[in-house]
């Protein structure tokens, strides 16, 4: 059955709702005036961003360091978790499922606050390392679920066949299970990376004074008011997001 005109109109309006504000921000990143009235095309805000905004790039570097390291650890642990959940005993699955489901459902702010209190109680100094710990913690349930979805998609008898043909456990893991899970592992990595790069609330609580990440930096700039430099940063981040979304199109179904 073809959806009616009303659903089409709602869809078009929803897409406009998504994109109009973003497009406005992108357009005004090329404005020559500081205030939001169009006075002519200019690249000066990008020039300012690239030449005299070292502090922003330092926060970007921090985000990349945390993003890459936390997603690697998160994917490795999440994949091993998914394999154990896929092949483990029923009772074990139940434990895994509960441990995964709870952090998945509770609001991020609770994870942030509880880790802040936890680190402070143990006298751990807040730094990039505490952000790394927090990011692995909140992204691991996602990476586990994504890899598990991929594993559930394929026929378990292939693993049985590997054993029948004499494969040992570690051979089966390296030659059968991991290759089969690979699309899920890739999707999981990028999901974890995106979650890490975007996270504001959890990082807000576990970051120390010298470990500002890009979202924390953007937050303090936005709080200060509108500025074309934020428009320029937004445009660049958006380009990155579009590029990644297009490149990872075919992995999307492991995420939703």
């Amino acid at each position, binding site marked *: 059955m073809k959806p009616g005109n009303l659903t089409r109109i709602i869809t078009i309006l929803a897409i406009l709702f998504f994109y109009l504000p973003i497009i406005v921000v992108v357009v005004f990143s090329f404005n020559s005036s500081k205030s939001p009235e169009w006075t002519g095309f200019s690249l000066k805000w990008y020039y300012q961003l690239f030449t005299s905004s070292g502090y922003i790039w330092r926060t970007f570097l921090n985000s990349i360091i945390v993003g890459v390291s936390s997603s690697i650890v998160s994917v490795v642990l999440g994949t091993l978790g998914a394999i154990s959940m896929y092949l483990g*005993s029923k009772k074990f699955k139940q434990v895994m499922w509960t441990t995964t489901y709870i952090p998945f459902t509770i609001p991020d702010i609770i994870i942030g606050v509880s880790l802040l209190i936890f680190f402070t109680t143990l006298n751990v100094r807040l730094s990039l390392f505490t952000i790394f710990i927090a990011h692995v913690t909140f992204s691991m349930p996602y990476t586990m679920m994504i890899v598990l979805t991929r594993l559930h998609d394929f026929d378990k008898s292939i693993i049985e066949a590997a054993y029948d043909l004499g494969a040992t456990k570690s051979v089966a893991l390296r030659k059968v299970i991991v290759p089969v899970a690979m699309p899920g592992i890739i999707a999981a990595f990028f999901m974890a990376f995106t979650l890490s790069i975007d996270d504001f609330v959890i990082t807000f609580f576990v970051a120390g004074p010298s470990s500002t990440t890009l979202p924390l930096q953007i937050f303090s700039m936005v709080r200060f008011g509108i500025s074309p430099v934020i428009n320029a940063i937004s445009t660049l981040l958006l380009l990155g997001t579009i590029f990644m979304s297009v490149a990872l199109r075919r992995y999307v179904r492991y995420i939703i």
Partner: protein
Amino acid sequence: MTLKRKRSEVLSSGSGYEKYGSVYLIWLTIFFVIPVIVILAYSFLTRDYQGGIILKFSIQGYKDIFNLNYLTVFIRTVIISFISAAICILIAVPVSYYIVYSKFKDFLLLLVIIPFWTNSLIRIYAWIFILGNNGLINQLLLNSGVVNSYVKFIYNNAAVLLILVYTYLPFAILPLFSSIERLEKQLFEAAMDLGCTKRQVFFKILLPNIKQGIVSAFVFVFIPALGTYAVPELVGGKNSRLIGNEIARQLTIARNWPAAAAISSILLILTIIAVIVFIYGGEKRETR
């Protein structure tokens, strides 16, 4: 025979694959389960005015937040989260239905995924840029002489609601999309063949069949909205402080950690109630 034993060893219960998941479990226990228990414990300890706590039992943390002011914040948070989840569902059901049966399904899905993966702060900023006191629309109004001083479009509850819907709409569309996609197309064709109108198909066939999808879409918006911090902080007014803002204020400004822990514990309990009501309530109705 050895082969047979090996195979049953690895694939039946207690296969030894559990050890692969042990690091995952230990990590989440240390950095999630224990910290959450620590929060619950903190809410019953004595406040240290330096920030932090003294190891002495006290319910002062709960007493500090037992007033009309906090009750209002809690009720406001639940109402705003509920309304934004409801609006998201109202938009997301027709949109995901349209996308599933569209010729441009992949492209439209991509258009939903991009905002889903776009940094939430720059999406909030976009609205501040447009509606803020020094924003685009105010600039237009001032320049054209329609108004003499800026109009306050944001810094109120309506702005918080608008931007929560804007932020979380993809969270509602994606689960609904996958639950509609799983439905058999023939279901709709059969209904049409038997004389149903499009309207009837939508309300009598589609909606009852995606009940579980609607429930999870609702939870995906409602629960993050309960804990939201950045949105009310950036576009809310004096009367739109939500639970998240109060937790942060108690932690960083008031330095009353037991109170912050008490608010967090209540938020945790609210979340658990929401999950039980929506998920388990939804399942029960389904099986009946």
